[in-house]
């Protein structure tokens, strides 16, 4: 609109879409009956979720002894999965908040789904916190409630308590940000609804939105402040998660590099997950004109940047372990690379350091198949990163007589599978019942960033009452 976009910029919306096309293309999957692909995917997810739920209940019923934990390795897959899922969530907030502050228009096509991913990923992460407590009915002990069981309050000096505050604030603010972004689009669906039931449901959730100029002005103001709040918030969350480790005295954890290194890794893995979800969504929902190769390339650039930061962090850690002269620290790192868990370290190094560097090639960066495969590899690598940090640092501690190995049991694996069931069930419900692309935001950028066709975006043929038929203002 009022923004001037260079003529050499490649369009963000292709196919000469009008405002009405945007509404139609994106509302279609919400209004139609579920497709076969969706039904099959949803059924599988629910089955996985049910199996996982049964296993989680068994874990709680029997106790954490069903996991492979031992006296030496007290954190393993539980916290690995927790950190992995929280990290994945970071991409959504980065896209919705940081890229809003940087005025990156390409975020409009992916922010809705990425934020949904954030919310579901944080839920999955929280489920591991509940699981690793062993007695989830006592989870409220982590809150600063008047303690009637003893005389103490929670220890506010503990990073674990900071984490409770960080994760719950992050979840709440992300949910609110996402829901506020949904209001205009829910109103669009409400006004198009044919059946009474959907008009009622979408009407209730759209909170009576009417799109008046005054509401929009306040709305934009609020979005800006929410983005300003979410930006430091998202950086704080993984910083605090990293402090769960960094404030301890375990060699391999006790490093000041952890906060920036964790945040970069989080964004790295999050974008890889966004790529995987988006590449599927754009094909299944026929949204190739909205989520274009440009979008995929932009996200791959973020993956390359954050992947490189992670790579530098790995090398720095190794260097400092030697340079510090602390023999425990040096041993922890030599043991990581050459000890019994060398394969996990090798997997981490290959997946996270080498694979994102392939994106320096434009052909690979713009290839859908390469992007999908490399994104899966990045997420595998980031899981191994957390496994390496947690298990290899713990399994050989100060006392060689207590050295041990960690062997995952069926329940370690099944409880991880549970989180996939939960994530995909929620994500598929979102994809079916809510618009996966932010219609209002795409409409707002379409004039400046759309493929130039000789029909105006309002759908009126050239020359009829429209002052600006090519909608390329700067060219005039």
């Amino acid at each position, binding site marked *: 609109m009022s923004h001037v976009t260079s003529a050499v910029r490649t369009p963000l919306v292709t196919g000469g879409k009008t405002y009405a096309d945007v509404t139609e293309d994106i509302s279609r999957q919400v209004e139609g009956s579920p497709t076969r692909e969706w039904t099959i995917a949803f059924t599988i997810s629910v089955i996985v979720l049910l199996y996982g739920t049964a296993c989680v209940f068994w874990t709680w019923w029997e106790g954490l002894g069903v996991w492979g934990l031992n006296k030496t390795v007290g954190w393993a897959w539980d916290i690995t999965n927790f950190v992995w899922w929280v990290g994945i969530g970071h991409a959504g907030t980065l896209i919705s908040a940081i890229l809003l502050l940087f005025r990156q228009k390409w975020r409009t096509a992916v922010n809705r789904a990425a934020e949904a991913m954030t919310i579901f990923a944080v839920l999955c992460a929280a489920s591991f916190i509940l699981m690793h407590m062993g007695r989830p009915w006592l989870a409220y002990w982590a809150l600063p409630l008047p303690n009637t069981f003893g005389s103490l309050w929670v220890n506010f*000096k503990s990073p674990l308590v900071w984490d409770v*505050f960080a994760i719950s*604030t992050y979840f709440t603010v992300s949910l609110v940000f996402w829901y506020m972004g949904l209001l205009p689009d829910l109103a669009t669906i409400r*006004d198009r609804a044919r059946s009474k039931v959907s008009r009622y449901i979408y009407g209730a959730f759209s*909170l009576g*939105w009417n799109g008046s100029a005054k509401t929009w002005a306040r709305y934009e103001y609020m979005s800006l402040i929410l983005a300003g709040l979410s930006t430091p918030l998202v950086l704080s969350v993984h910083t605090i998660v990293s402090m769960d480790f960094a404030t301890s005295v375990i060699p391999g954890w006790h490093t000041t590099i952890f906060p920036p290194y964790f945040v970069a890794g989080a964004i790295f893995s999050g974008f890889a997950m966004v790529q995987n979800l988006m590449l599927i969504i754009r094909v299944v929902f026929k949204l190739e004109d909205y989520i274009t190769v440009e979008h995929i390339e932009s996200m791959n650039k973020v993956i390359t940047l954050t992947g490189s930061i992670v790579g530098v962090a790995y090398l720095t850690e190794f260097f400092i372990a030697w340079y510090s002269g602390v023999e425990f620290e040096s041993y922890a790192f030599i043991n990581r690379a050459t000890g019994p868990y060398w394969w996990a370290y090798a997997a981490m190094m290959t997946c996270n350091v080498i694979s994102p560097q392939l994106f320096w090639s434009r052909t690979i960066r713009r290839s859908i198949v390469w992007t999908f495969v490399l994104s899966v590899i990045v997420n595998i690598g980031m899981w191994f990163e957390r496994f390496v940090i947690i298990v290899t640092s713990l399994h050989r501690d100060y006392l060689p007589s207590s050295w041990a190995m960690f062997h995952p049991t069926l329940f370690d694996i099944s409880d991880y599978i549970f989180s996939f069931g939960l994530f995909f069930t929620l994500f598929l419900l979102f994809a079916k019942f809510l618009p996966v692309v932010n219609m209002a935001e795409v409409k707002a950028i379409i004039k400046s960033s759309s493929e130039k066709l000789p029909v105006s975006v309002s759908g009126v043929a050239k020359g009829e009452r429209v*002052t600006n038929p090519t909608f390329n203002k700067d060219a005039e």
Partner: protein
Amino acid sequence: MSDVTGNGKFLVGIYDDDDVVLKAVRDVKDAGVRIHEVYTPFPIHGLDIALGHPRSRLGIAAFLFALSGTSTALLLTAYMESFDWPMIVGGKDSYSIIVYVPIIFELTVLFCALGMVGTFIVSNGLGPTVKPLMYDLRTTDNKFAMAIDMSKNNLGEGDVERILKNSGAAEVNVKQF
């Protein structure tokens, strides 16, 4: 939303393009018509200024909510850790503001975000049971509607309709609430 007064009769000009409606606001105002409000499917920058809406004060509300979050966190940690049951952990003072920075930051953000969004919802009269006054259902899709409250204008219906048409309205409808 109780923004309807008088007989509740409105003339609604429907526009096809955001740039046209933005220009039309000035033209219609210049012609001496009082505009009730403009309804659009997406935000149009400058429209609120053209309509003469005052600048939003949400920022002030957000700041005050943020302050309340900060002070809550300060009081909470001070009371629990230093006053009610002083604890020395890790050799740190029972009140050490540095270790409470994460808590203070998180509560500031939480109070600010929830308070501001709550203010937004209340100030716009939004809510799950609110039935919106829709001047035209297409304004959440691809049309832009300018509503003129006839009870607040001295001009006749024909004159207003002519002014709206001249400003670029594709159609002019009558809406009674």
